[in-house]
C-alpha cells in the first residue's frame, strides 16, 4: 500500500514544519530573557566619518522638542540641533520616530544610534546608555485648572486622578509620590497634550508635567495658558541629554563637542526662542 506512505510523508513534513515553528517560538521566548539583544560591537567607537548614516531616534509625539510637520518630516528643537550637528560632521542623519517605551532598547539593539528627544538623564537610564552633556534643564510641575485654588498638598492627597505622560519622567514622579504616601490616582495618557486635555475634560484634577513641555506649550497657546495655573514645582532640576550606546566613544564625543560649541553661541538662544523652550 504505497499510497499511504506518500500521504504519511506529506503529513510528516507539514508536521515537522509546524512543530519546528512552535518549538522555535517557545525556545526563543524561553531563551530571550537570558539574552539581552546582542548589541552591535561598538559601532561608533570611532567617530562616524563624513557621509556615514547615523540614526537619530525620537518620540514623534513630543513637541516642541521632537514632532512631525504636516508632510511627515521630523521637526522640533532637538531635530534642528541634530541636523546642525550632522551638518558639521557631514553625517547622513535619519530621524526615526520610535515608540518611547522601547526607545532605549532600540538603541541597545542597534536599531537607533542615539536618542535626542527630550530624554531626561536619570541614574536608571545611565546604567544602560551613555549620556552626553546636559543641554537643557527643567523642573517638574504640578499644574491644575486656574479655577482650582487648592494647594499642592491638597491636590496630591485629594484621592482624585492626576494625569501624566506614560513612560515619561512625570509617570515616574507620580509613582514615587504615591509610594511615598500621597493619596491620588495616576492617570497615564499618551502625551502631555492629552494629559492636559484630561484636566479640561474633568477626568483628572491636575497634571504632573514639566517646564520643558509647559513652557513652550503655554507660550504657543495663550488661551490654554489662561485655563491653567502652575500650582508648584515637584522635585529638583532635571536635565535632558543625548543617549548613546556604551562603547560608542566616537559618536558621543563628537556630539558633545558640537553641542558644547553650539551652546556657547548666540544661535543657541535663537533656536530656543524659535521653539519657545
Amino acid at each position, binding site marked *: 500500500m504505497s499510497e499511504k506512505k506518500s500521504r504519511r510523508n506529506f503529513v510528516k513534513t*507539514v508536521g515537522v514544519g509546524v512543530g519546528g515553528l512552535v518549538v522555535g517560538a517557545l525556545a526563543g521566548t524561553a531563551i530571550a530573557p537570558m539574552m539581552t539583544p546582542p548589541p552591535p560591537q561598538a559601532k561608533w567607537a570611532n567617530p562616524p566619518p563624513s557621509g556615514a548614516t547615523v540614526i537619530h531616534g525620537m518620540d514623534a509625539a513630543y513637541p516642541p522638542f521632537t514632532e512631525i510637520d504636516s508632510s511627515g518630516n521630523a521637526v522640533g528643537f532637538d531635530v534642528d540641533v541634530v541636523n546642525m550637528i550632522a551638518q558639521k560632521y557631514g553625517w547622513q542623519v535619519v530621524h526615526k520616530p520610535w515608540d518611547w517605551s522601547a526607545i532605549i532598547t532600540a538603541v541597545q539593539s542597534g536599531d537607533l544610534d542615539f536618542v535626542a528627544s527630550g530624554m531626561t538623564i536619570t541614574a536608571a537610564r545611565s546604567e544602560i546608555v551613555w549620556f552626553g552633556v546636559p543641554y537643557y534643564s527643567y523642573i517638574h510641575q504640578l499644574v491644575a485648572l486656574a479655577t482650582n485654588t487648592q494647594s499642592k498638598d491638597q491636590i496630591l492627597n485629594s484621592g482624585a486622578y492626576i494625569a501624566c505622560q506614560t513612560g515619561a519622567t512625570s509617570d515616574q514622579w507620580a509613582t514615587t509620590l504615591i509610594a511615598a504616601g500621597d493619596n491620588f490616582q495616576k492617570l497615564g495618557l499618551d502625551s502631555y497634550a492629552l494629559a492636559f486635555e484630561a484636566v479640561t475634560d474633568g477626568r483628572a484634577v491636575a497634571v504632573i508635567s514639566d517646564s520643558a513641555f509647559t513652557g513652550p506649550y503655554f507660550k504657543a497657546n495663550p488661551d490654554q495658558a489662561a485655563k491653567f495655573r502652575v500650582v508648584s514645582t515637584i522635585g529638583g532640576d532635571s536635565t535632558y541629554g543625548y543617549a548613546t550606546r556604551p562603547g560608542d566613544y566616537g559618536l558621543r564625543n563628537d556630539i558633545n563637542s558640537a553641542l558644547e560649541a553650539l551652546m556657547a553661541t548666540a544661535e543657541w538662544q535663537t533656536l530656543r526662542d524659535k521653539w519657545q523652550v
Partner: protein
Amino acid sequence: MTAFAEFLPYILSGIVWTLGLVAGGIGIGFVIGLFMAIGQVYGGEELKAIIHAYVWFFRSIPLLVLLFLFYWGVFPATGFKLDPLACSIVVLGLRSGAYQSQIFRGAIMSLGDTQLVAARALGMSQMSGIFHVVLPQALRISMPGWSNEYATMIKDSSITFALGVLEILTRTRYVVAATNEALIPYFFAGALFLVLTYAGTKAVNIVYERTKIPGLVGKL
C-alpha cells in the same frame, strides 16, 4: 481644525502601510491556516497535537505581547534581525494562521467525508482528492468567516504602533501631539478604519457571490 487638515495627507499615507500589514498578515495566515486545517482533519494524532498547541498558543497570548515577544525575544534569539514592519507582518501572519486554520477546519468538516470518499473511489490520491474536491468547496464555504478575519486584521494592524510601524494609528498619534488636538484626529482615524473594513468585506462578498455555486452548502 485647519491645523489638522494639513496633516491629512500624512495620515492617509498610512493606508498603504496598514494595507501592507493586512495583506502580508492574511497572506501568511492563509498558507499556514490551510496547511494546519488539512493536518487537523486528515493528519495523525501527533500532528493534530502539535497543531492544537500552536493554535492554543497564538490564540491565548495578546497580540501586543506577541509582537514584543517576537521582536525583542524570538527573532534576536534565533539570529534573525527583522525590522518592525517585517516582524509585525510575520507575527500577524502567525496569529492569523491560528484563527484561519479553525475557519478552514470547520468548513472542511462541514462537507462531511463523502466527497473525499467519492474522489478516492475514482482512484484519486488523498492529496488530489483534498486539493481538487475538498478545498474548492471548503474555501468557498469559508468565505463569510474569512471576511471576518479581514475585519479583525485591519483592527489588529493598528497594534503595530507599538513597534513604531508607520500605519494609520501611529501617524494619528503623532498628529495628535503635533496639533494638540485629540478628538478630530482620532475621529478621522476611526472613520478611515471603518471605510477600509467596509470596503474589504464588501470586496470579499462580491468574490463570494461571483464564485458561488448553486446549492453548495456544507452538511449541517
